[in-house]
Protein backbone atom coordinates (compact mmCIF):
# COMPACT_ATOMS: atom_id res chain seq x y z
CA UNK A 1 0.00 0.00 0.00
CA UNK A 2 2.73 2.35 0.98
CA UNK A 3 4.83 1.43 -2.03
CA UNK A 4 1.91 1.94 -4.34
CA UNK A 5 1.32 5.37 -3.03
CA UNK A 6 4.93 6.29 -3.36
CA UNK A 7 4.97 5.02 -6.93
CA UNK A 8 1.89 7.06 -7.72
CA UNK A 9 3.51 10.13 -6.27
CA UNK A 10 6.65 9.53 -8.22
CA UNK A 11 4.70 8.97 -11.35
CA UNK A 12 2.89 12.22 -10.80
CA UNK A 13 6.17 14.01 -10.23
CA UNK A 14 7.65 12.50 -13.39
CA UNK A 15 4.59 13.55 -15.39
CA UNK A 16 4.78 17.17 -14.19
CA UNK A 17 8.48 17.32 -14.91
CA UNK A 18 8.02 16.14 -18.48
CA UNK A 19 5.10 18.43 -19.07
CA UNK A 20 7.07 21.36 -17.76
CA UNK A 21 10.11 20.42 -19.86
CA UNK A 22 8.11 19.96 -23.04
CA UNK A 23 6.19 23.13 -22.39
CA UNK A 24 9.33 25.09 -21.65
CA UNK A 25 11.03 23.90 -24.83
CA UNK A 26 7.94 24.48 -26.92
CA UNK A 27 7.30 27.97 -25.57
CA UNK A 28 9.35 29.85 -28.16
CA UNK A 29 7.73 27.77 -30.88
CA UNK A 30 4.28 28.64 -29.58
CA UNK A 31 5.09 32.34 -29.72
CA UNK A 32 6.64 31.88 -33.11
CA UNK A 33 3.47 30.49 -34.55
CA UNK A 34 0.77 32.56 -32.85
CA UNK A 35 2.16 36.07 -32.61
CA UNK A 36 2.69 38.91 -34.99
CA UNK A 37 3.87 42.37 -34.19
CA UNK A 38 3.33 45.97 -35.12
CA UNK A 39 5.85 48.74 -34.75
CA UNK A 40 5.33 52.38 -35.68
CA UNK A 41 8.75 53.34 -37.00
CA UNK A 42 8.12 56.98 -37.88
CA UNK A 43 5.41 59.61 -38.21
CA UNK A 44 5.67 62.39 -40.77
CA UNK A 45 3.47 65.18 -39.53
CA UNK A 46 3.67 68.96 -40.07
CA UNK A 47 5.20 70.72 -37.08
CA UNK A 48 2.81 73.59 -37.67
CA UNK A 49 -0.45 74.01 -39.56
CA UNK A 50 -3.10 76.65 -39.93
CA UNK A 51 -6.66 76.13 -38.70
CA UNK A 52 -8.80 75.19 -41.68
CA UNK A 53 -5.83 73.85 -43.62
CA UNK A 54 -5.90 70.35 -45.06
CA UNK A 55 -2.84 68.35 -44.05
CA UNK A 56 -1.52 64.90 -44.79
CA UNK A 57 0.13 62.69 -42.17
CA UNK A 58 2.09 59.54 -42.88
CA UNK A 59 2.49 56.82 -40.28
CA UNK A 60 5.18 54.30 -41.14
CA UNK A 61 4.53 50.85 -39.75
CA UNK A 62 6.66 47.75 -39.67
CA UNK A 63 4.62 44.58 -39.55
CA UNK A 64 6.00 41.13 -38.96
CA UNK A 65 3.78 38.05 -38.99
CA UNK A 66 6.67 36.13 -37.40
CA UNK A 67 6.13 33.31 -39.88
CA UNK A 68 2.60 32.66 -38.74
CA UNK A 69 -0.71 32.32 -40.50
CA UNK A 70 -2.23 35.79 -40.37
CA UNK A 71 -4.98 35.48 -42.95
CA UNK A 72 -8.31 37.32 -42.64
CA UNK A 73 -6.93 40.03 -40.38
CA UNK A 74 -8.45 43.49 -40.25
CA UNK A 75 -5.96 46.31 -39.81
CA UNK A 76 -7.08 48.68 -37.06
CA UNK A 77 -5.79 52.23 -36.82
CA UNK A 78 -6.53 54.89 -34.23
CA UNK A 79 -5.75 58.57 -34.14
CA UNK A 80 -5.80 60.93 -31.19
CA UNK A 81 -6.73 64.54 -31.96
CA UNK A 82 -8.61 67.45 -30.38
CA UNK A 83 -12.34 66.76 -30.20
CA UNK A 84 -12.98 70.05 -31.96
CA UNK A 85 -11.29 68.65 -35.06
CA UNK A 86 -14.14 66.12 -35.41
CA UNK A 87 -11.91 63.50 -37.01
CA UNK A 88 -14.82 61.16 -37.58
CA UNK A 89 -16.20 63.56 -40.16
CA UNK A 90 -13.04 65.32 -41.27
CA UNK A 91 -10.43 62.63 -41.82
CA UNK A 92 -9.83 60.07 -44.53
CA UNK A 93 -7.41 57.19 -43.98
CA UNK A 94 -5.78 54.64 -46.26
CA UNK A 95 -3.03 52.06 -45.88
CA UNK A 96 -0.44 50.88 -48.34
CA UNK A 97 1.97 47.98 -48.30
CA UNK A 98 3.60 45.54 -50.68
CA UNK A 99 1.43 42.67 -49.37
CA UNK A 100 -0.33 41.15 -52.34
CA UNK A 101 -0.91 37.55 -51.43
CA UNK A 102 -4.61 37.45 -52.09
CA UNK A 103 -6.46 39.97 -54.31
CA UNK A 104 -9.62 39.78 -52.25
CA UNK A 105 -7.66 40.35 -49.03
CA UNK A 106 -5.37 43.16 -50.20
CA UNK A 107 -2.44 44.79 -48.47
CA UNK A 108 -3.51 48.26 -49.52
CA UNK A 109 -6.77 50.16 -49.53
CA UNK A 110 -9.03 52.59 -47.80
CA UNK A 111 -9.82 52.45 -44.13
CA UNK A 112 -13.33 53.12 -42.92
CA UNK A 113 -14.46 54.88 -39.78
CA UNK A 114 -15.06 52.33 -37.03
CA UNK A 115 -18.74 51.39 -37.61
CA UNK A 116 -19.01 50.56 -33.89
CA UNK A 117 -21.36 47.70 -34.77
CA UNK A 118 -19.94 44.96 -32.56
CA UNK A 119 -22.18 42.29 -34.04
CA UNK A 120 -19.64 42.06 -36.87
CA UNK A 121 -16.53 40.05 -36.00
CA UNK A 122 -14.07 42.60 -37.37
CA UNK A 123 -15.53 45.36 -35.22
CA UNK A 124 -15.13 43.50 -31.92
CA UNK A 125 -12.36 45.01 -29.88
CA UNK A 126 -10.10 42.90 -27.71
CA UNK A 127 -8.95 44.27 -24.40
CA UNK A 128 -5.63 44.09 -22.58
CA UNK A 129 -6.16 40.40 -21.88
CA UNK A 130 -6.66 39.66 -25.56
CA UNK A 131 -10.27 38.64 -25.04
CA UNK A 132 -13.23 40.30 -26.72
CA UNK A 133 -14.26 43.18 -24.52
CA UNK A 134 -17.72 43.64 -25.97
CA UNK A 135 -16.78 47.19 -26.94
CA UNK A 136 -16.04 48.82 -30.24
CA UNK A 137 -12.49 49.83 -31.13
CA UNK A 138 -13.30 53.48 -30.54
CA UNK A 139 -14.68 52.82 -27.07
CA UNK A 140 -11.71 50.71 -25.99
CA UNK A 141 -9.18 53.15 -27.42
CA UNK A 142 -10.63 55.91 -25.29
CA UNK A 143 -10.79 53.67 -22.22
CA UNK A 144 -7.41 51.95 -22.53
CA UNK A 145 -5.08 54.46 -24.15
CA UNK A 146 -3.90 57.69 -22.57
CA UNK A 147 -4.11 61.04 -24.31
CA UNK A 148 -0.42 61.86 -24.32
CA UNK A 149 0.55 65.28 -23.04
CA UNK A 150 -2.86 66.77 -23.74
CA UNK A 151 -4.68 68.03 -20.68
CA UNK A 152 -8.02 66.84 -22.10
CA UNK A 153 -10.49 67.75 -24.86
CA UNK A 154 -8.95 65.04 -27.05
CA UNK A 155 -10.35 61.80 -28.39
CA UNK A 156 -9.22 58.64 -30.09
CA UNK A 157 -11.04 57.82 -33.31
CA UNK A 158 -10.72 54.32 -34.75
CA UNK A 159 -10.53 53.24 -38.38
CA UNK A 160 -10.63 49.73 -39.83
CA UNK A 161 -9.37 48.35 -43.12
CA UNK A 162 -12.30 47.99 -45.45
CA UNK A 163 -11.46 44.34 -46.13
CA UNK A 164 -9.56 41.72 -44.19
CA UNK A 165 -5.93 41.21 -45.17
CA UNK A 166 -3.89 38.10 -45.86
CA UNK A 167 -0.67 38.98 -44.06
CA UNK A 168 0.63 35.46 -43.48
CA UNK A 169 4.32 34.67 -43.43
CA UNK A 170 5.42 38.17 -44.23
CA UNK A 171 7.40 41.06 -42.86
CA UNK A 172 6.71 44.37 -44.45
CA UNK A 173 7.07 48.13 -44.09
CA UNK A 174 3.77 49.86 -44.83
CA UNK A 175 2.28 53.31 -44.48
CA UNK A 176 -0.96 54.68 -43.17
CA UNK A 177 -1.88 58.03 -44.63
CA UNK A 178 -4.30 60.37 -42.91
CA UNK A 179 -5.71 63.43 -44.62
CA UNK A 180 -7.60 65.82 -42.37
CA UNK A 181 -8.68 69.40 -41.92
CA UNK A 182 -7.06 71.12 -38.98
CA UNK A 183 -9.71 72.41 -36.61
CA UNK A 184 -10.01 75.57 -34.59
CA UNK A 185 -10.06 75.97 -30.84
CA UNK A 186 -6.51 74.98 -29.96
CA UNK A 187 -3.13 76.57 -30.61
CA UNK A 188 -1.23 73.39 -29.86
CA UNK A 189 -1.90 69.71 -29.37
CA UNK A 190 -0.23 66.35 -29.25
CA UNK A 191 -1.56 63.99 -31.89
CA UNK A 192 -1.45 60.26 -31.28
CA UNK A 193 -1.45 57.15 -33.45
CA UNK A 194 -2.25 53.51 -32.68
CA UNK A 195 -1.96 50.51 -34.93
CA UNK A 196 -2.88 46.86 -34.40
CA UNK A 197 -5.03 44.08 -35.77
CA UNK A 198 -8.48 42.83 -34.93
CA UNK A 199 -7.39 39.40 -33.74
CA UNK A 200 -5.04 40.65 -31.02
CA UNK A 201 -6.45 44.09 -30.33
CA UNK A 202 -5.01 45.65 -27.19
CA UNK A 203 -3.52 42.37 -25.94
CA UNK A 204 -0.47 43.15 -23.87
CA UNK A 205 2.83 41.43 -24.20
CA UNK A 206 6.34 42.80 -23.94
CA UNK A 207 7.24 44.96 -26.87
CA UNK A 208 10.15 44.14 -29.09
CA UNK A 209 13.41 45.98 -28.47
CA UNK A 210 13.37 47.80 -31.77
CA UNK A 211 10.10 49.55 -31.01
CA UNK A 212 10.65 53.26 -31.47
CA UNK A 213 8.43 54.88 -28.88
CA UNK A 214 6.81 53.73 -25.67
CA UNK A 215 5.30 50.55 -27.12
CA UNK A 216 3.38 48.68 -24.48
CA UNK A 217 2.80 45.48 -26.40
CA UNK A 218 4.24 43.63 -29.36
CA UNK A 219 0.71 43.34 -30.74
CA UNK A 220 0.19 47.06 -31.12
CA UNK A 221 2.09 50.29 -31.00
CA UNK A 222 1.46 53.94 -30.29
CA UNK A 223 3.23 57.12 -31.25
CA UNK A 224 2.66 60.73 -30.15
CA UNK A 225 3.81 63.92 -31.82
CA UNK A 226 3.18 67.62 -31.15
CA UNK A 227 1.70 70.10 -33.59
CA UNK A 228 1.35 73.86 -33.43
CA UNK A 229 -1.82 75.41 -34.86
CA UNK A 230 -1.93 78.98 -36.09
CA UNK A 231 -5.04 81.06 -36.71
CA UNK A 232 -7.05 78.99 -34.26
CA UNK A 233 -8.92 81.92 -32.74
CA UNK A 234 -8.39 84.30 -29.84
CA UNK A 235 -9.71 81.83 -27.28
CA UNK A 236 -7.64 78.90 -28.54
CA UNK A 237 -5.85 76.91 -25.85
CA UNK A 238 -2.69 74.84 -26.02
CA UNK A 239 -3.69 71.29 -25.14
CA UNK A 240 -0.12 70.48 -24.18
CA UNK A 241 -0.03 73.22 -21.56
CA UNK A 242 -1.72 73.23 -18.17
CA UNK A 243 -5.47 72.88 -18.30
CA UNK A 244 -7.11 76.29 -18.41
CA UNK A 245 -8.83 77.44 -15.30
CA UNK A 246 -11.70 79.83 -14.94
CA UNK A 247 -9.84 81.94 -12.43
CA UNK A 248 -10.58 85.07 -14.40
CA UNK A 249 -12.54 86.03 -17.43
CA UNK A 250 -13.90 89.12 -19.08
CA UNK A 251 -17.46 90.10 -19.86
CA UNK A 252 -19.07 90.78 -22.26
CA UNK A 253 -18.28 87.78 -24.42
CA UNK A 254 -17.44 89.99 -27.38
CA UNK A 255 -15.24 92.92 -26.50
CA UNK A 256 -12.46 95.16 -27.65
CA UNK A 257 -10.53 97.43 -25.39
CA UNK A 258 -12.72 100.43 -26.26
CA UNK A 259 -15.61 98.54 -24.67
CA UNK A 260 -16.64 98.73 -21.07
CA UNK A 261 -15.34 95.46 -19.68
CA UNK A 262 -16.14 93.57 -16.51
CA UNK A 263 -13.26 91.54 -15.09
CA UNK A 264 -14.44 88.63 -12.97
CA UNK A 265 -12.14 86.80 -10.57
CA UNK A 266 -13.27 83.51 -9.03
CA UNK A 267 -11.12 82.70 -5.98
CA UNK A 268 -12.47 79.13 -6.03
CA UNK A 269 -10.88 78.38 -9.42
CA UNK A 270 -7.34 77.43 -8.57
CA UNK A 271 -5.05 74.76 -9.96
CA UNK A 272 -6.48 71.27 -10.45
CA UNK A 273 -9.85 72.16 -9.00
CA UNK A 274 -8.49 73.65 -5.79
CA UNK A 275 -9.09 77.12 -4.40
CA UNK A 276 -6.75 80.02 -5.02
CA UNK A 277 -4.72 81.61 -2.25
CA UNK A 278 -7.29 84.42 -2.14
CA UNK A 279 -10.10 82.08 -1.16
CA UNK A 280 -12.24 83.60 1.59
CA UNK A 281 -10.22 86.82 1.90
CA UNK A 282 -12.12 89.96 2.76
CA UNK A 283 -11.04 92.18 -0.10
CA UNK A 284 -9.43 91.78 -3.50
CA UNK A 285 -7.68 94.24 -5.80
CA UNK A 286 -7.00 93.86 -9.49
CA UNK A 287 -3.44 94.41 -10.65
CA UNK A 288 -3.21 95.09 -14.35
CA UNK A 289 -0.70 95.78 -17.06
CA UNK A 290 -1.82 96.81 -20.51
CA UNK A 291 0.26 96.48 -23.64
CA UNK A 292 -0.17 99.34 -26.07
CA UNK A 293 0.04 99.49 -29.81
CA UNK A 294 3.28 101.48 -29.68
CA UNK A 295 4.95 98.70 -27.68
CA UNK A 296 4.84 100.47 -24.33
CA UNK A 297 2.99 99.33 -21.24
CA UNK A 298 0.95 100.94 -18.51
CA UNK A 299 0.91 99.30 -15.10
CA UNK A 300 -1.77 99.82 -12.49
CA UNK A 301 -0.83 97.63 -9.57
CA UNK A 302 -0.87 100.06 -6.67
CA UNK A 303 -3.99 98.45 -5.19
CA UNK A 304 -5.76 101.80 -4.95
CA UNK A 305 -9.48 102.33 -4.44
CA UNK A 306 -10.14 102.27 -8.18
CA UNK A 307 -8.71 98.75 -8.42
CA UNK A 308 -10.82 97.43 -5.56
CA UNK A 309 -13.13 94.64 -6.70
CA UNK A 310 -16.70 94.04 -5.58
CA UNK A 311 -17.82 90.73 -4.11
CA UNK A 312 -20.73 89.56 -6.28
CA UNK A 313 -21.02 85.89 -5.31
CA UNK A 314 -19.34 83.06 -3.45
CA UNK A 315 -15.70 84.18 -3.65
CA UNK A 316 -16.45 85.85 -6.97
CA UNK A 317 -15.15 89.37 -7.40
CA UNK A 318 -15.81 91.85 -10.19
CA UNK A 319 -14.65 95.20 -11.41
CA UNK A 320 -16.17 97.10 -14.33
CA UNK A 321 -14.08 99.66 -16.16
CA UNK A 322 -13.49 101.45 -19.39
CA UNK A 323 -9.86 100.58 -20.22
CA UNK A 324 -8.84 103.78 -22.07
CA UNK A 325 -10.05 105.90 -19.18
CA UNK A 326 -8.89 103.54 -16.43
CA UNK A 327 -5.34 103.34 -17.79
CA UNK A 328 -5.18 106.88 -19.18
CA UNK A 329 -4.39 105.85 -22.73
CA UNK A 330 -3.40 108.90 -24.72
CA UNK A 331 -4.79 109.76 -28.13
CA UNK A 332 -3.18 107.86 -30.94
CA UNK A 333 -2.54 104.74 -28.90
CA UNK A 334 -4.58 101.58 -28.43
CA UNK A 335 -4.58 98.73 -25.94
CA UNK A 336 -3.67 95.39 -27.46
CA UNK A 337 -3.54 93.12 -24.40
CA UNK A 338 -4.33 93.20 -20.72
CA UNK A 339 -2.41 91.09 -18.19
CA UNK A 340 -4.02 90.51 -14.81
CA UNK A 341 -3.22 89.28 -11.35
CA UNK A 342 -5.20 89.62 -8.17
CA UNK A 343 -4.13 90.36 -4.63
CA UNK A 344 -5.33 91.22 -1.18
CA UNK A 345 -5.12 94.94 -0.27
CA UNK A 346 -1.62 94.76 1.24
CA UNK A 347 -0.28 92.72 -1.65
CA UNK A 348 0.94 89.87 0.54
CA UNK A 349 -1.12 87.33 -1.40
CA UNK A 350 -1.03 87.43 -5.18
CA UNK A 351 -2.87 85.06 -7.50
CA UNK A 352 -1.69 84.66 -11.06
CA UNK A 353 -2.53 82.10 -13.71
CA UNK A 354 -2.64 78.76 -11.88
CA UNK A 355 -0.16 76.31 -13.31
CA UNK A 356 1.90 78.99 -15.01
CA UNK A 357 2.56 81.56 -12.26
CA UNK A 358 2.35 84.29 -14.84
CA UNK A 359 -0.26 87.00 -15.24
CA UNK A 360 -3.54 85.95 -16.84
CA UNK A 361 -3.49 87.39 -20.34
CA UNK A 362 -6.42 88.60 -22.40
CA UNK A 363 -6.51 89.90 -25.93
CA UNK A 364 -9.50 91.46 -27.65
CA UNK A 365 -12.20 88.91 -28.40
CA UNK A 366 -14.63 90.12 -31.02
CA UNK A 367 -15.90 87.75 -33.70
Amino acid at each position, binding site marked *: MFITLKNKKMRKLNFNYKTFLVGFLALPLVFLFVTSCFDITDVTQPASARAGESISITVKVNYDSEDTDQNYRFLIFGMLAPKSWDLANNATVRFDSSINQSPDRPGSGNMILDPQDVSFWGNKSRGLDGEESGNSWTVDMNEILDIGENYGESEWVAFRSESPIDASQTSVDGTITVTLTVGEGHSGAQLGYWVGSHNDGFKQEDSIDSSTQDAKSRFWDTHFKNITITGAGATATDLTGPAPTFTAFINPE*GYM*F*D*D*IITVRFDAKEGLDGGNTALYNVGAVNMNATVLLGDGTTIVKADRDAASSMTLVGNNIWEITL*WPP*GYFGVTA*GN*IITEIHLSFSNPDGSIIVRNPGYDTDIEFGANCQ
Partner: protein
Amino acid sequence: MRNIFIITLIFSLALFSACDDAETFDVREDALIDYKVEINGEWSLHSIHRNGTDLSGHFNASALTLSISDGSFTLGSSTLPFPTLKTSGTPFASGNWSFDDDFKPTNIQFTNGSEIVPAGLSMPLFGKNNSSLGLQFSLGCGATTYVYHFKK
Protein backbone atom coordinates in the same frame (compact mmCIF):
# COMPACT_ATOMS: atom_id res chain seq x y z
CA MET B 1 -94.19 95.85 -43.97
CA ARG B 2 -94.39 96.27 -40.22
CA ASN B 3 -91.45 93.89 -39.73
CA ILE B 4 -89.27 95.85 -42.15
CA PHE B 5 -90.03 99.01 -40.18
CA ILE B 6 -89.03 97.36 -36.87
CA ILE B 7 -85.76 95.96 -38.27
CA THR B 8 -84.84 99.34 -39.76
CA LEU B 9 -85.53 100.99 -36.40
CA ILE B 10 -83.30 98.52 -34.51
CA PHE B 11 -80.37 99.05 -36.90
CA SER B 12 -80.74 102.81 -36.68
CA LEU B 13 -80.67 102.72 -32.89
CA ALA B 14 -77.58 100.52 -32.95
CA LEU B 15 -75.74 102.91 -35.23
CA PHE B 16 -76.65 105.98 -33.21
CA SER B 17 -75.66 104.34 -29.94
CA ALA B 18 -72.21 103.44 -31.45
CA CYS B 19 -71.70 107.09 -32.32
CA ASP B 20 -72.41 108.02 -28.73
CA ASP B 21 -69.38 106.05 -27.52
CA ALA B 22 -66.78 108.08 -29.47
CA GLU B 23 -63.81 109.05 -27.24
CA THR B 24 -61.64 112.11 -27.29
CA PHE B 25 -57.86 112.39 -26.71
CA ASP B 26 -55.60 115.22 -25.79
CA VAL B 27 -52.86 115.44 -28.39
CA ARG B 28 -49.75 117.60 -28.12
CA GLU B 29 -49.77 120.22 -30.78
CA ASP B 30 -46.21 119.33 -31.84
CA ALA B 31 -47.31 115.76 -32.48
CA LEU B 32 -49.56 116.95 -35.26
CA ILE B 33 -47.30 119.61 -36.68
CA ASP B 34 -43.80 118.86 -37.92
CA TYR B 35 -41.40 120.84 -35.81
CA LYS B 36 -37.67 120.68 -36.27
CA VAL B 37 -36.39 118.59 -33.34
CA GLU B 38 -34.47 120.67 -30.88
CA ILE B 39 -32.13 119.19 -28.24
CA ASN B 40 -29.97 122.16 -27.30
CA GLY B 41 -28.98 122.32 -23.67
CA GLU B 42 -26.93 120.66 -20.93
CA TRP B 43 -27.43 116.92 -20.68
CA SER B 44 -26.21 114.68 -17.88
CA LEU B 45 -25.77 110.95 -18.18
CA HIS B 46 -28.44 109.22 -16.15
CA SER B 47 -27.85 105.52 -16.94
CA ILE B 48 -25.56 103.18 -18.88
CA HIS B 49 -26.73 99.82 -20.17
CA ARG B 50 -24.44 97.26 -21.85
CA ASN B 51 -26.31 94.55 -23.73
CA GLY B 52 -29.30 95.33 -21.52
CA THR B 53 -27.38 95.19 -18.22
CA ASP B 54 -27.39 98.32 -16.10
CA LEU B 55 -23.82 99.43 -15.42
CA SER B 56 -24.72 102.87 -14.03
CA GLY B 57 -23.51 102.02 -10.53
CA HIS B 58 -19.98 101.35 -11.79
CA PHE B 59 -19.43 104.86 -13.05
CA ASN B 60 -19.95 108.37 -11.82
CA ALA B 61 -22.33 108.74 -14.71
CA SER B 62 -23.42 112.28 -13.89
CA ALA B 63 -19.85 113.39 -14.51
CA LEU B 64 -20.39 112.77 -18.19
CA THR B 65 -22.17 115.85 -19.42
CA LEU B 66 -23.08 116.56 -22.99
CA SER B 67 -23.41 120.19 -23.90
CA ILE B 68 -25.34 120.68 -27.12
CA SER B 69 -25.94 123.91 -28.94
CA ASP B 70 -26.87 124.62 -32.52
CA GLY B 71 -24.74 122.20 -34.47
CA SER B 72 -21.96 121.74 -31.91
CA PHE B 73 -21.34 119.59 -28.86
CA THR B 74 -18.86 119.32 -25.98
CA LEU B 75 -18.31 116.45 -23.56
CA GLY B 76 -17.68 117.30 -19.91
CA SER B 77 -15.31 114.34 -19.40
CA SER B 78 -12.93 112.38 -21.56
CA THR B 79 -12.33 109.60 -19.05
CA LEU B 80 -15.82 108.15 -19.28
CA PRO B 81 -16.75 106.05 -22.30
CA PHE B 82 -18.43 107.80 -25.20
CA PRO B 83 -18.45 106.75 -28.85
CA THR B 84 -16.38 109.76 -29.94
CA LEU B 85 -13.66 108.81 -27.46
CA LYS B 86 -12.83 105.42 -28.99
CA THR B 87 -9.08 104.94 -29.20
CA SER B 88 -9.41 102.89 -32.37
CA GLY B 89 -10.09 106.17 -34.16
CA THR B 90 -9.08 109.73 -33.35
CA PRO B 91 -10.87 110.51 -30.10
CA PHE B 92 -12.55 113.89 -29.81
CA ALA B 93 -14.52 115.47 -26.96
CA SER B 94 -16.05 118.32 -28.94
CA GLY B 95 -17.15 118.98 -32.48
CA ASN B 96 -20.29 119.17 -34.52
CA TRP B 97 -23.41 117.06 -34.66
CA SER B 98 -26.37 116.54 -36.96
CA PHE B 99 -29.50 114.41 -37.22
CA ASP B 100 -30.21 112.13 -40.15
CA ASP B 101 -33.64 113.82 -40.33
CA ASP B 102 -34.29 117.19 -38.68
CA PHE B 103 -37.97 116.42 -38.15
CA LYS B 104 -38.11 112.69 -37.42
CA PRO B 105 -34.55 111.73 -36.54
CA THR B 106 -33.51 108.12 -35.87
CA ASN B 107 -29.77 108.74 -35.81
CA ILE B 108 -27.38 111.41 -34.69
CA GLN B 109 -23.82 111.73 -35.88
CA PHE B 110 -20.92 113.46 -34.23
CA THR B 111 -17.95 114.73 -36.15
CA ASN B 112 -14.73 116.60 -35.63
CA GLY B 113 -14.36 117.30 -39.32
CA SER B 114 -12.48 114.16 -40.24
CA GLU B 115 -14.11 111.48 -38.06
CA ILE B 116 -17.83 110.74 -38.23
CA VAL B 117 -19.30 108.76 -35.33
CA PRO B 118 -22.96 107.70 -35.66
CA ALA B 119 -25.30 106.77 -32.81
CA GLY B 120 -28.88 105.61 -32.89
CA LEU B 121 -31.64 107.34 -30.96
CA SER B 122 -33.09 104.84 -28.53
CA MET B 123 -36.19 106.90 -27.73
CA PRO B 124 -38.29 109.25 -29.85
CA LEU B 125 -37.69 112.97 -29.66
CA PHE B 126 -40.31 115.71 -29.70
CA GLY B 127 -40.00 118.93 -31.54
CA LYS B 128 -39.50 120.93 -28.37
CA ASN B 129 -39.03 120.53 -24.63
CA ASN B 130 -37.20 117.23 -24.75
CA SER B 131 -36.11 116.10 -21.30
CA SER B 132 -34.64 112.69 -22.24
CA LEU B 133 -32.10 111.77 -24.84
CA GLY B 134 -31.28 108.11 -25.52
CA LEU B 135 -28.25 107.11 -27.56
CA GLN B 136 -27.49 103.59 -28.76
CA PHE B 137 -24.09 102.66 -30.15
CA SER B 138 -21.15 100.28 -30.06
CA LEU B 139 -17.87 101.27 -28.49
CA GLY B 140 -15.56 98.61 -29.83
CA CYS B 141 -16.99 95.22 -30.64
CA GLY B 142 -20.06 95.49 -32.83
CA ALA B 143 -21.67 92.57 -31.02
CA THR B 144 -21.80 94.62 -27.82
CA THR B 145 -24.20 97.53 -27.72
CA TYR B 146 -24.69 100.34 -25.23
CA VAL B 147 -27.64 102.52 -24.43
CA TYR B 148 -26.96 105.84 -22.70
CA HIS B 149 -29.86 107.74 -21.21
CA PHE B 150 -29.19 111.45 -20.78
CA LYS B 151 -31.44 113.77 -18.85
CA LYS B 152 -31.58 117.53 -18.63
